[in-house]
């Protein structure tokens, strides 16, 4: 009998069945159901069903992140509905508009543990693989149904193993690896698949960097993503208040069957950029260097964690944002923002001319920082679809925090290594 992949083991655990094979459809009982700003839709749906009993309120997590704070009276009413529902139903895991992006908040708070299965009303729920969990996105009706029944159907996915070795050259980051992979494999390169990252490089990454990896795997259509939990994972969970005996790590077996094994040498990479209007439209930054920008956005669940802001601050220290550019920085969470304030990172960014907003999804979800016709943003987020940040006639480029910061300084798309050379020369 051949070995099992992580995805097979995670779905066997969550469904209480054994010997599952890819393609089988089973009912799973997720450990956690995340809903973000979409929570009001779940509540309205539940009210429409006339149901008042929930399967397990402790498995429900709500975070008001996509539109925060309220912009319209409709938003305010939606938030109020969620707040009051959480209180009435005894939902303990509720975060209001001050907390930040749901994914990052839940991981920081210790609610995401290795081996567990988490569903969320957000495609980027693949991010939970950064802690060795099985995370996947679903619609709001499914979250509502799971609130009631505790279960939903899942197909056991094929797995693709992505082996990354070597060390990244200076100025190149995990975001660049993922953009290159997305460019090479395409927007549907991993559709329906579990993306397992392995090799020497992922094992060297921080949890924050693993989040960038697992988040962006979704842009190839992945069902979930996964980095093997290790001592780095355990230390992160220690800090999040999760005792090591509280979770059980699931590792793929030797000899597990993969649809495909892909290898990538990190040391051969240079900074990469996604150009409009699809994420898989990827070129080395030098091919579009010099493209004039109107705005730079450092934010989103892909790249607005503490180390992302720190990298941007290192590039921006002692420099100024170009006069014609608006630099918007939206920390991923209140904890990230607090740490960046204490360490001086926020001060450096403000000094350089950045506008710091409250934590949350912000401009990535089109809330604040929208563009008018003909404008161009370089963003550290994960999507560049037309109209996502305002006008359908505006353009979004995607890059790493270092590329974003360097581009903000020059006012044009810039290879961050150009500014590093400037310092040393």
């Amino acid at each position, binding site marked *: 009998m051949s070995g099992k992949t992580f995805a097979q083991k995670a779905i066997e655990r969550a469904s209480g069945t054994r010997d599952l094979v890819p393609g089988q459809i089973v009912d799973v009982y997720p450990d956690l159901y995340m809903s973000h700003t979409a929570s009001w839709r779940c509540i309205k749906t539940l009210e429409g069903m006339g149901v008042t009993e929930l399967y397990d309120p402790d498995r429900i997590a709500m975070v008001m992140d996509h539109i925060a704070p309220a912009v319209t009276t409709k938003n305010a009413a939606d938030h109020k509905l969620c707040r009051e529902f959480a209180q009435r139903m005894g939902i303990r895991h509720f975060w209001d508009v001050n907390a930040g992006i749901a994914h990052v908040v839940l991981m920081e708070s210790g609610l995401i543990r290795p081996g567990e299965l988490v569903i969320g009303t*957000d495609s980027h729920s693949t991010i939970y693989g950064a802690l060795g969990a099985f995370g996947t996105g679903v*619609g709001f009706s499914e979250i509502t*149904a799971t609130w009631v029944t505790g279960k939903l159907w899942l197909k056991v996915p094929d797995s693709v193993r992505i082996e990354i070795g070597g060390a990244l050259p200076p100025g190149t980051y995990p975001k660049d690896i993922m953009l290159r992979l997305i460019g090479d494999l395409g*927007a*549907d390169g991993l559709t329906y698949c579990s993306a397992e990252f392995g090799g020497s490089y992922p094992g060297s990454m921080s949890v924050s960097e693993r989040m960038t990896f697992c988040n962006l795997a979704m842009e190839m259509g992945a069902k979930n993503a996964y980095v093997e939990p290790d001592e780095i994972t355990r230390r992160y969970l220690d800090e999040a208040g999760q005792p090591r005996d509280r979770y059980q790590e699931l590792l793929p077996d030797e000899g597990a069957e993969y649809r495909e094994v892909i290898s990538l040498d990190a040391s051969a990479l240079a900074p990469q950029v996604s150009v409009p209007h699809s994420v898989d439209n990827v070129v080395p930054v030098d091919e579009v260097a010099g493209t004039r920008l109107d705005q730079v956005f450092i934010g989103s669940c892909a790249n607005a964690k503490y180390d992302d802001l720190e990298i941007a601050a290192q590039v921006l220290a002692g420099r100024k944002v170009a006069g014609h550019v608006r630099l918007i920085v939206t920390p991923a969470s209140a904890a990230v923002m607090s740490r960046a304030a204490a360490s001086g990172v926020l001060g450096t960014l403000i000094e350089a001319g950045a506008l710091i907003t409250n934590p949350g999804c912000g401009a990535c979800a089109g809330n604040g920082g929208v563009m008018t016709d003909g404008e161009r943003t370089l963003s550290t987020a994960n*999507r560049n679809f037309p*109209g996502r940040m305002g006008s359908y006639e505006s353009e979004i480029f995607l890059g790493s925090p270092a590329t974003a910061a360097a581009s903000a300084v020059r006012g044009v798309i810039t290879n961050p290594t150009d500014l590093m050379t400037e310092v040393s020369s």
Partner: protein
Amino acid sequence: MSAMTAGGTAVVFGDNVNTDVIIPGRYLVSIDPAELAEHAFEPLGADVQRRVRSAGVVVAGRNFGCGSAREQAATALTGAGIQAVVAASFARVFFRNAINTGLVAVECPPAAAAVHDGDEVTVDLDGGTVTTPAGTYQFPPYPEALRQILADGGLIPHLMRSSR
């Protein structure tokens, strides 16, 4: 139960049609199918919107509905009068959302390649066929669990029916 068929005039799209194009994020403050339908495919312009509203079937290439998990991408199509989507392949969350909101979604690459704008297309779920002017094409039948959800008009009606 009556045979499950869906059909109508086709509007044809290419590969990688994303959910931001199907229904832009700014309109997600609504869950009303009619209201959402007014803005379906808005980024592609008024001509495409008119063609979608006069169609009954969306036919697309690979990876239809990629991007966000927004369920309203399926609801907006239903609101616009779309009965079925036939594609070479679907992004997985869109496929779930389609089934869960009662929208027929079938993967059938040869049918998707054979259909032109304005063709009459019929999907027979029980028979596992897509009929087009160019011919009839087979697709693997739905697993029974999914077929039941669709037959009941979506996940929530299915749940209410089965809990009765």
